[in-house]
């Protein structure tokens, strides 16, 4: 049984700056298991995009294969979607982003799709700093094939079948940092208050933005002994701080404690406020971020929130110096040098 999106809408649903209601950002009915963390993440994506006032059709949502990768059907129904090949979403997004730099690219993947079959593409899209949001719906197991451990399952974590995982886990945030990602965050599907501003900040970031979202699998990995169960994550999550995202041109009204906060202006003019809980973490310093992650890993806690951001990030189009006009809008006069040029080339080949 899936949760159903109600067909009726309150006539006075709040609209965003563009006049869209939240319903305009929803998708079709989910076919995931009831209570699946992925559906909560889909809800957070809907809320973030609505509040950001992005035109729904100016977002492209792409995914690989697996439960997570099915989820783009369940949000942003007015956006083009692409459910591609297992582990290969990053390459498809890369090509799409090369063709049109003016859309927002939202990649959705899972832990199998990213940390196993897609590890290579994940590493390389991070190092190219492609302007995209990369959300991993991380449940530590292969849901569609009935619960095998994935590469992000912690060593010793017990699956529903009862076996403890004998391999060490891949930490996608640490991997992304080392591969050169310019925005790295971790969320929890059960904590929308934290996740929504993280998604907004990631969308506004210019460059590769990873959000690794721990998203318990209610059917195969929510049992005692699992380190990706709701209970375990609630007990062990430790946030880097809280994040407020302030859209461009909005008045900043939030209070914050002096000395513990950062205000960061994003490339598009919006800003984020960070309220730090961990004085030792400097989220604008890669080394500090890596050390903090390693400390939490050693103590068995799950570090959530914004972990790292490069404020001066230059994305792939910037470094490649591609045309500001989307390449897919160029026509013959921009692209084809004509026969006279070919005659000159012929002459050089004699």
């Amino acid at each position: 049984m899936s949760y159903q999106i109600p067909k009726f809408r309150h006539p006075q649903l709040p609209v965003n700056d563009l006049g869209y209601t939240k319903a305009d950002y929803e998708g079709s009915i989910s076919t995931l298991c009831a209570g699946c963390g992925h559906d909560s993440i889909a809800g957070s994506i809907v809320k973030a995009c609505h509040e950001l006032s992005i035109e729904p059709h100016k977002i492209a949502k792409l995914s690989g294969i697996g439960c997570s990768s099915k989820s783009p059907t369940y949000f942003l129904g007015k956006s083009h979607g692409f459910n591609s090949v297992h582990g290969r979403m990053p390459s498809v997004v890369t090509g799409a982003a090369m063709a049109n730099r003016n859309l927002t690219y939202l990649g959705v993947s899972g832990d199998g799709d990213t940390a196993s079959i897609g590890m290579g593409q994940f590493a390389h899209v991070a190092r190219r700093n492609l302007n995209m949001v990369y959300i991993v719906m991380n449940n530590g197991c292969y849901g569609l094939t009935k619960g095998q451990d994935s590469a992000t399952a912690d060593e010793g974590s017990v699956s529903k079948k009862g076996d403890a995982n004998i391999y060490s886990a891949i930490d996608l945030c640490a991997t992304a940092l080392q591969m050169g990602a310019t925005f790295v965050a971790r969320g929890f599907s059960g904590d929308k208050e934290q996740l929504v501003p993280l998604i907004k900040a990631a969308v506004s970031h210019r460059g590769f933005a990873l959000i690794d979202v721990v998203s318990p699998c209610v059917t195969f990995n929510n049992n005692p002994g699992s380190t990706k169960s709701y209970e375990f994550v609630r007990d062990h999550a430790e946030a880097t701080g809280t994040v407020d995202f302030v859209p461009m041109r909005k008045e900043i009204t939030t209070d914050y404690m002096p000395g513990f906060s950062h205000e960061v202006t994003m490339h598009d003019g919006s800003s984020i406020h960070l309220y730090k809980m961990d004085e030792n973490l400097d989220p604008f310093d890669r080394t500090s971020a890596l050390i903090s992650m390693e400390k939490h890993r050693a103590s068995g806690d799950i570090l959530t929130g914004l972990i790292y951001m490069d404020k001066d990030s230059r994305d792939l189009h910037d470094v490649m110096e591609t045309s500001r006009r989307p390449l897919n809008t160029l026509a013959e006069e921009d692209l084809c040098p004509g026969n006279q040029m070919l005659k000159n080339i012929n002459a050089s080949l004699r």
Partner: protein
Amino acid sequence: MKQIKSVNDFVIKFANVNGTGSASANNLFAKALFRMGLPVSPKNIFPSNIQGLPTWYEVRVSEAGYLGRRGGIDIALSVNPQSMAQDIKEVRSGGYFIYDNTKPLDLRLVRDDVNIIGIPLTRICNEEYKDPRQRQLFKNVIYVGALAALLNMDFKVLTDLVGDQFKGKEKLILPNIHALELGHQYARSQFECPIGIQVKTLDSLGDQILVDGNTALGLGAVYGGATVAAWYPITPSTSVVDAYEKYARRVRIDAGTGHKNYAIVQAEDELSAIGMVIGASWNGARAFTATSGPGVSLMSEFLGLAYFAEIPTVLFNVQRAGPSTGMPTRTQQSDILSTAYASHGDTKQVLLFPSTPRECFDFGALSFDLAERLQTPIIVMTDLDLGMNDNMSEPLAWDDARRYDRGKVMTAEQLEEGVEFGRYLDVDGDAISYRTYPGTHPNRGAFFTRGTSRDEYAVYTEKGEEYEKNMLRLMRKWDTIKEYVPEPEVVAASEETDVAVLYFGTSEASSREALDYLAQDDGIYLDAMRVRSFPFNDEVKAFIEGHSQVFVIEQNRDAQLRTLLMAEFEFGPDKLKSVLCFDGTPISARNIRKQIKQYLDGGMVMPLHRTKIASSAGE
């Protein structure tokens, strides 16, 4: 002693050490002959190595205009002691063996039926140059100068060419001309020039050009409007993207802003490269990748997605000898089956077979029109022989009135007007549906692209009848495709015959030459068809049906095109006989002639086992 005597008709083979700068000197030699108006066909035979291993460069000169590999060496020029024993063995009786005699030739190698010409290249260099690098580089130029005297080449053509080649690096012109003169003078003072083989200036080439197929293909991508290139380096395809980049830099950088009207991404592997092409094409850009056999294997899963989800995809496959790493620097046409049916499930892919640089350019540009019109992968099948060797070709040409065919793309205006949109809906009977680019319209035209089965409106479904309907539409689209792909070329024999040959790609030149010999010398007449694409057009079927016996000439072991013909048309094995060459060298006219004669002399009795007609290397 017997001396081969000929004017404007010979094969010379240079034997060098890889990485010693011989390639540019050998190229200078071939290009000078080309500028003298002689039909030339240079071929690099090189190892998978950067420095140190033997490498060869074979140049055929043929006043008759035969450009395929002939087989047999008239002149060997050997400056590589590693390969000298093999090099002298290959020389035809009465031919010439030119070598560096600074060290005397091993007496065991001497043949009394070969004219041996020693030039002390190392000694001349040691006397003339102090810098070891110069000694090595100019050694090559010196032997070109010597050849100019021995063959009676127009020396001025050579010196002019040096001037052209070093335009912008004028300091290098005089030293190179000096080195040419050193060799020229030595040969003239020591030997009776010309030798039995010589060249005479001709005026036979018109406006032809000398260019490698990969350069032409890269140019085709520029002219065809490709804006996204994604690739992973692999021999022998790498120079396609190199050429695309070279010319894009020249013609695609906005003069005002300095920004590029193209994007080239070197991917982490071939899977990623084709993924990027699919993503870019899905998003409305013209995109391509270039690869070779191993890359095609890796791309095969994505090719299935592009076929099934109907995403325009352009792939240039420069074939090399497989399987596995095979002989990565040798040529073959051995990816026919792996591309034609690439991917799991029921798939069929469109293949184009160019045979000249001009066709590489034309098909390269055309592939983007076809991919967008037909919404499916288009695979241009060239090979190492065409791609990496300089080939004489008709000049490249572009019709400035030509517009790109962007295929069926529904616009925001059409959606606004309320035109019905179903991504996989066949609205006009050609089995090709309209697509939309992402971001087109706020409320209409968005759809979900997926590799899973779906209905005509792109909605996921696992209903068998919907799946079947879609697969049958793809078969009807396959028929539409036949109307768009290049038609075959037919050459009728000068006498009526019911026997024919069928070939494609780089087998053309040698096949045509073999047919001439068979007609002139053996009285055997064969009609000929050059297939230029898959799916096969109806003419291909009619041609085969119109002959009692068709020899299918191809450069692989398993007769892959023949298999494809049998699978698509259900011709029996008796109808189609194979003429094969798969030793990694381009197929030669002598080889083709020999194999066809073997069949026909045997009173049309065919050996059942194909291995009996396996090609003979170097023929």
